[in-house]
């Protein structure tokens, strides 16, 4: 049911202007310029990467079920929601609220690593607090094992074997109290942890205990992880241990390599045409890079590429035609080129507010 609700929501927003494949890429968090652009233009940020391990088979099966129940219609790989579909969506969407702390875009690269380190560390420190040092680790990745080992080694200069578990559990409890205030149940997370003579539960087991759908449970679980990372970043002084554990994970959202080079050249004051010449790339490729930079970096000004007045014309056109189809927008603002329209759409995610 959760998957159905997600599909209906995205199909509704896409207004039959994107294929079902785009929905799949969105839900699984494909890091391509196209998907990132779709996400921003249609205001679907909170759906990005919401089920990273969704298989294409399950996705297709769900689409088929929706079609058979006449909740959507599909034509040329493009889906449209029916009024029945919209009704059902309204009825079920409440039970699948997406937590405010969830950010599938920002934490895509780091959430798994964070969990791997955290679960292995808790297991280690739990054994320590019972005076044990040998156990079968819950994380097999050798690199993760090395990272945790190194971290503990660094900490051992400041804390002894008794103090470290104490301090760590103290920070963990504090973090989870914040999580609880944000109306996420810490149980969802805590019972996944393993320690001395206590095994964590698998996602399926805990979802069954709490009578939740496993896929929805996973979302709630990940939201707690996201919240913990965000809290740590915002209150470094309160969580010194978590801060050092996550220091290398707090990277700014990164551009593709090629776009990054373009970004650096732009910072040096080079123009689009100069960069294209210097890098021996097509002008359109550099334009793609700039769109990506704008999407990733809300502070980046598009003024040098689109005049203020043209920006306003494009926005008003978008509001009139209620579409993200470039061609339709251009028909209303013939003087704008496609690059300008894409820039405006990418720089003004707020336009989406009107669109709802």
């Amino acid at each position, binding site marked *: 049911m959760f998957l159905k609700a997600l599909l209906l929501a995205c199909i509704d927003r896409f207004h039959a202007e994107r294929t079902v494949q785009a929905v799949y890429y969105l839900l699984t968090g494909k890091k391509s310029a196209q998907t990132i652009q779709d996400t921003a233009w249609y205001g679907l940020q909170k759906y990005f990467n919401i089920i990273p391990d969704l298989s294409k088979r399950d996705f297709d099966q769900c689409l088929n079920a929706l079609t058979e129940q006449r909740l959507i219609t599909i034509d040329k790989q493009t889906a449209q929601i029916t009024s029945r579909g919209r009704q059902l969506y309204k009825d079920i969407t409440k039970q699948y609220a997406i937590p405010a702390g969830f950010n599938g875009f920002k934490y895509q690269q780091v959430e798994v690593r964070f969990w791997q380190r955290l679960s292995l560390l808790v297991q280690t420190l739990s054994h320590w607090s019972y005076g044990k040092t*040998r156990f*079968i680790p*819950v994380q097999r990745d*050798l690199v993760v094992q090395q990272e945790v080992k190194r971290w503990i080694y660094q900490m051992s200069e400041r804390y002894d074997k008794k103090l470290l578990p104490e301090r760590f559990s103290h920070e963990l*409890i504090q973090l989870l109290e914040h999580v609880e205030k944000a109306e996420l149940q810490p*149980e969802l997370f805590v019972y996944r942890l393993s320690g001395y003579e206590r*095994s964590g*539960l*698998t996602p399926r087991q805990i979802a069954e205990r709490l009578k939740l759908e496993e896929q929805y449970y996973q979302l709630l679980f990940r939201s707690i992880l996201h919240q913990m990372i965000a809290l740590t970043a915002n209150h470094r002084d309160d969580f010194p241990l978590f801060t050092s554990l996550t220091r290398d994970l707090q990277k700014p959202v990164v551009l593709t390599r090629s776009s990054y080079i373009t970004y650096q050249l732009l910072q040096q004051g080079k123009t689009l045409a100069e960069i294209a010449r210097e890098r021996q790339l097509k002008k359109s490729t550099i334009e793609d890079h700039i769109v990506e930079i704008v999407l990733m970096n809300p502070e980046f000004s598009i003024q040098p590429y689109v005049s203020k007045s043209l920006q306003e014309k494009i926005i008003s056109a978008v509001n009139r035609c209620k579409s993200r189809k470039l061609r339709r927008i251009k028909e209303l603002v013939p003087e704008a080129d496609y690059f300008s329209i894409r820039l405006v759409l990418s720089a003004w995610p707020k336009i989406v507010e009107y669109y709802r």
Partner: protein
Amino acid sequence: MQLEQILYEKFSYKGFRLGQKEIIESVLAGHDTLAVLPTGSGKSLCYQLPGLIIEGITIIVSPLLSLMQDQVEQLKAKGIKQVVALNSFLTLAERKFVLKNLATYKFIYTSPEMLQNEHILTALRKLPIRLFVVDEAHCISQWGYDFRPDYLELGVIRQRLGNPQVLALTATARRQVREDIQASLQMTGTKEFLYPIDRKNIALQVERFDTQNEKSERLLELVRDLQGPGIIYFSSKKMADYYATLLGQNNYRVASYHSEIEQEQRILLQQQFLYGEIDLICATSAFGMGVNKEDIRYCLHYHPPVDLESYFQEIGRAGRDGKNSIAIMLYCPDDYYLQTQLIANELPDRGQIHYFARWKEEQQKQLRGNSSDVQMAEYPPGFTEIQFRLLEKFYQRINHVDQFISTTSTFVEKRLAWKQEKLQEITEWIHSTGCRRKKLLEYFEETQSEIAEPCCDSCGFDIRIFFQREDRVNNPESLNWKKRIYELFHV
């Protein structure tokens, strides 16, 4: 130092189990050694202990990737840290890390596929490898029930690694298979150690039904009555999942366990089973459990496996603590067709062989072309991993396409007929009327030395001795996150 002393210091065992000492002494004396030991009798100690004594590195070739991983972690948990598993599970970063530190390990577990990789073999050739262990060595033989073509190259690889001494281990090997193993690994002056494989403390029972429904009802009845912990084997993941869910709804502490369950969850489930947090595992027969749980009281087969070797291997998980345990097979005539299907699916059929040859040609054409960035799927669609690996192996060895097709087809036909024969044997065993244990041991070319009591359903015993003695309690405590954290950190 005395072997017993090392055994205690490094592994905290008080004494050797049957066969271990003789095998270890043979290895330490420098003989090529072939040992047939029953499952669960501590086969791995036979190379772990000498590996610590011998100067240089021990390589262990094992076909089961997930089990390999478990063994590595268990050794590490014992404090033997210079161990690594070099297999396809490693991420790129891990593989780099391992290859960089290769010389620091004392034990390197790896798969036959990995050893085909020139890059890795080159790295290994630089190391002082002194002991070459082949686990599950029956995989070498065409007449081994679980033949893996990749195992065939192991003899050559042994040579390229500087001809280290060999230790071949298996739980089930008839004479023909043992001969194949020795020839293929080019073993010389081999010392053979054969130990009785009979597991006297496991009672054998077969129950036959006309329909799946009756069988299903009986399963639920047995799970209700039998004293756990237990394992139930199914021939498909779907069925394992289905019954795990069904039993879970009936308040049993149960989980399904098969290759589709992610590694992280598998580790948790093993741990839960070991700690007694769950009492029942619904598993697929193709999937081993890397945990040494000693007190498994029963082993149910909801579907029979495809041959007696697999059956014997699987029931061997029960009763490792030596206490009375029971293996019950539930059989209904439909199962025979299901098994036939399973056997057929394991091997590529004619169409697949032809398709594979065409796919390969296409791939080579593209490679010859100027486009260097053509992306070909690593697998052609519609093949299982085992099918693909087998075809790949034959293709590498035979350059000519027609010959590839005919050789492979002949092999597949022969293999199918042989597998069919094995299926016939287990089916006959299921329908046999005499003592089941006697029949089973005859099949493994062994004579019964001691009478087992209870023995089997033909000899007769009272199944009630295996029934529940304790009341099952399953009142999961309510969730309380702070309490749980206090428990974890001993506050």
